[in-house]
C-alpha cells in the first residue's frame, strides 16, 4: 500500500508520480483515438477549415496594387487629393516604369479588373494604356504626364488617382464596405447612392425569408411529427418513409417539379381556373418571386424540422399528458402546458437546422426565386462565377458566417444550447 500521509504527490507502486504513470498508461489509448479520427480531421481541415480561412483572408486582402505598381504607390503617398489636382510628373513617371514591368508580365490587366470593381472603366483604361506603354522608351520619352493623358483623358481624372490611392494598402476594408452598401473614400466611408444599394436589402430579405420558412416548417412539421410519434412503430416507420422521400429525390428535380406546379400555366393555376376560383386572366403568380421560394424551400427543408421534432417527441412518455388530464386539464391545456414545453428542444433543434440551412440556400432561390425571391447566396455565387469579384464574395460570405454565429450565440444565450435535442 502507498503511504498517503505523505505531503508530496501520490506515488505509484514503482515510485513515479501517480499522475505521470496514469497519463503514460492512457497515452496509447489517446494515440489510438487520434489515429482513428485523423482521416476525418485532415479531411475537414483541408476541405472546410482552410477554405473558410482563405475566404476570411480574401475578404480583406488587397496586395495586387502594391505588387503591380510598387513605385506608383510610393510616389502617390505624398500626393494630396484634397487639392483637386492630378499628381505631378514623378507619379506619372513611376506609373510608366511600373506599367512597363507589369505589361511585360501581363499583370496589368488583372490589376485593371481588380480596380474596375471600385470604379468602372479602369479595366479598359489599363488595357488601352498597356498596349501603348509597351512601345515607350523610358529613358527618352519623358515627361509622361501629357503622354498618359493623351492616351486616355481618364489619366487626367482625379477620381482614378483617388481610387488608386485608396486601394494602395495591402489590406482593405473596402470589400466589407461594399458588402454593406458603402463606399470607401479617402475621407472615410460613405453610403452608396440609393439606386446602387443592394446588399443590405438582400441580407434583410434572406433573414426574413429564412425566418418565414422556419416558421412554416414548424407549423407544418409539428403536427406531422406528433402523429408519427404517437402512432404504433410499424405505421410510424411507413409514414416516416414518406417524410424522408424528398431526401432521396434530387434537389434539382424537386425544385423543377415546383416550377411545373406553380407556374402560371402550371398544375395549380390550371386546377384553380378549371374550378372557377380564379379567372383565366387572373392566374396567380406563384413562381419567380418570394412566394415560390418560400413554398419550394419549405417543402425541401421540412424533413429537417420533422426529424428532430419526431425524435424528441418520441421520448415524451404518454403518461405526462394522461397525468395532466387526470388532474383535470382539458386536451388543449394538457397539450399546451405539459406536452408543448417538453417538445421545445425539438423545435429549437429543427429551427436551428432549417434556419441555418435556408440562410445559405442557393439552388432553389436561383431556380424559382426570380428577382424578388433570391437570397444573398445567389449574389455571392454571382460574384464568384460571373463578376469574378472574389473579394466581395468573400466579404459577403464572411458577414453571412458572422450572422449565423451571432444568431447561434444569441440562441444559446436565450434558450440554451442544452435545450437542443436531436433525440435520446
Amino acid at each position, binding site marked *: 500500500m502507498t503511504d498517503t500521509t505523505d505531503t508530496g504527490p501520490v506515488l505509484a507502486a514503482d515510485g513515479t508520480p501517480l499522475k505521470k504513470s496514469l497519463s503514460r498508461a492512457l497515452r496509447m489509448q489517446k494515440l489510438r483515438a487520434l489515429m482513428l479520427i485523423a482521416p476525418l480531421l485532415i479531411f475537414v481541415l483541408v476541405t472546410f477549415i482552410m477554405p473558410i480561412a482563405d475566404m476570411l483572408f480574401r475578404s480583406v486582402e488587397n496586395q495586387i496594387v502594391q505588387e503591380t505598381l510598387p513605385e506608383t504607390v510610393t510616389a502617390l503617398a505624398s500626393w494630396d487629393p484634397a487639392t483637386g489636382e492630378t499628381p505631378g510628373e514623378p507619379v506619372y513617371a513611376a506609373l510608366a516604369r511600373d506599367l512597363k514591368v507589369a505589361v511585360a508580365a501581363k499583370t496589368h490587366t488583372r490589376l485593371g479588373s481588380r480596380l474596375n470593381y471600385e470604379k468602372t472603366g479602369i479595366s479598359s483604361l489599363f488595357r488601352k494604356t498597356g498596349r501603348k506603354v509597351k512601345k515607350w522608351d523610358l529613358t527618352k520619352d519623358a515627361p509622361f504626364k501629357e503622354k498618359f493623358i493623351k492616351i486616355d483623358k481618364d489619366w487626367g481624372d482625379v477620381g482614378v488617382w483617388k481610387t488608386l490611392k485608396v486601394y494602395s494598402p495591402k489590406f482593405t476594408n473596402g470589400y466589407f464596405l461594399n458588402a454593406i452598401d458603402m463606399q470607401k473614400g479617402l475621407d472615410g466611408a460613405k453610403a452608396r447612392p440609393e439606386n446602387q444599394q443592394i446588399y443590405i436589402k438582400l441580407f434583410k430579405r434572406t433573414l426574413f425569408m429564412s425566418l418565414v420558412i422556419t416558421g412554416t416548417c414548424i407549423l407544418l412539421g409539428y403536427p406531422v411529427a406528433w402523429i408519427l410519434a404517437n402512432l404504433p412503430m410499424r405505421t410510424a416507420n411507413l409514414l416516416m418513409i414518406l417524410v424522408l422521400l424528398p431526401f432521396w429525390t434530387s434537389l434539382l428535380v424537386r425544385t423543377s417539379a415546383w416550377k411545373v406546379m406553380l407556374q402560371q400555366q402550371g398544375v395549380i393555376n390550371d386546377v384553380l381556373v378549371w374550378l372557377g376560383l380564379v379567372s383565366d386572366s387572373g392566374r396567380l403568380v406563384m413562381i419567380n418571386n418570394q412566394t415560390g421560394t418560400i413554398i419550394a424551400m419549405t417543402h425541401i427543408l421540412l424533413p429537417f424540422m420533422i426529424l428532430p421534432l419526431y425524435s424528441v417527441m418520441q421520448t415524451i412518455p404518454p403518461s405526462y399528458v*394522461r397525468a395532466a388530464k*387526470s*388532474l*383535470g386539464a382539458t*386536451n388543449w*391545456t394538457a397539450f399546451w402546458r405539459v406536452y408543448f414545453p417538453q417538445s421545445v428542444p425539438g423545435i429549437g433543434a429543427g429551427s436551428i437546422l432549417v434556419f441555418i440551412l435556408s440562410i445559405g440556400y442557393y439552388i432553389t432561390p436561383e431556380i424559382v426565386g426570380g428577382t424578388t425571391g433570391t437570397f444573398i447566396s445567389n449574389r455571392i455565387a454571382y460574384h464568384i462565377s460571373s463578376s469574378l469579384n472574389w473579394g466581395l464574395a468573400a466579404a459577403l460570405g464572411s458577414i453571412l458566417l458572422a450572422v449565423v454565429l451571432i444568431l447561434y450565440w444569441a440562441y444559446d444565450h436565450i434558450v440554451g444550447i442544452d435545450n437542443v435535442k436531436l433525440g435520446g
Partner: protein
Amino acid sequence: MAKQNSSDAFVEFERVQKSYDGETLVVKDLNLKMPKGEFLTMLGPSGSGKTTCLMMLAGFETATHGEIRLDGVSINNIPPHKRGIGMVFQNYALFPHMTVAENLSFPLEVRRMGKSQREEKVKRALDMVQMGEFGGRRPAQLSGGQQQRIALARALVFEAELVLMDEPLGALDKQLREHMQFEIKRIADNLGITVVYVTHDQTEALTMSDRVAVFDDGRIQQLAPPDTLYEEPENSFVAQFIGENNTLEGVIQKINGDICEVRLDSGDIIDAKPVNVTKAGERTKVSIRPERVEFNSERLQPGAHTLRAEVLEFIYMGDIFRTRLRVAGNEDFIVKTRNAPDQVRLEPGSQIEIGWLPQDCRALDA
C-alpha cells in the same frame, strides 16, 4: 346514462369487457363493487387485465362493453379530465419542466382556483407527505422516494375522493417500498379516500389492502380480504399466486360434507377440505401452506391420514427454517418452521411422517 342508484357502491364495474384488437378479450366480464373509503388492490401477473381495468376507470381506455359507475353515475362517456379521479402513475409522471410546487398547483390552476387558496392547498399537501421544504425543486432533483411522495401529493391535492395508483412503488428499492406502503396506507386512512391500487407484488397487496382482487386471464379469480385470500384460496390459481404453496395432485375418492378423501397420484390417501370440487372421480390439486405442515407426531391429530416424507434439504433463514421434502413424488414440498429453541432441525436423508389438519388442506380444481 342517468343516475342508477342500484346500490351503495361508490365504484362499480358491471359486466365490463375490453378488447384492443377485436379478436381477444383482455378483460372478460368484470363485475366489481367498491364501497366508499375502501382500499382495494388489483393483483395479478402482467397481462392479466388489471392495468386495463384501472385505465378504463381513469378514462384513458373505453370499455368495449358494460358500464362503469362512479357514485352511482355512469362515467363511460365522461372524458378523463372531468372525472375528478386522482391518479399516481407508475413512473410518477411529474412534469419535468415545472417545480414541485407548480406540479401540485397545476390541478388547482386548471380548476381556476385563486392564488392564495392554491398556495395554501399546495403547502398542506406537501406537509402531508413531509416534503414541505421541497416546493421549489424540480422533480429531477429529487430521489425516487421523494418523487413518489410528490406524485401522491399531486393526486390528492385537488381533494379527489377516488385515487388510482398504478404500481406506484415499482421503481423503489425494497426498504423504501415497505416504508412507502405504510405511508400511503396511513394517508389514505386519514383522508378517508377510496383507493384502487394496482400491483403485481403480493406482499404489497396483502399488507395494504382492505380487499384484494386477484386477476388472471381477464377475470377476477377471487375478491377477498388479505387473510381470507391467503388462508382460504378459492381456486388453484389463487393458491399458487398468493404466498408459498405446496401442491399435490390426485383424484377425489369421496366427498363427505366438509371432508373429502383424495387418492394422490402416488397412491397415498389424504383428507382434505373440498373447495371447488363437486363430485368423486374429479381430478384435483390439493394445496397446503408450508407453515401448516406438521411433522411432530405428537401434535398430529389421531386418525388423520399421514404421509411418509424424505428430507432433502434444510435451509437456515434466520427467523425460520425452510425444509425441502420429497412427499408423494413431489420433490419441491416445502415446510416452514419457526426458529424456536425447542424446534427440531431435520437432517437431510432422514425419513419422517408428516400430516396436517384437514381444514388446512384444500382440494381445489386441477
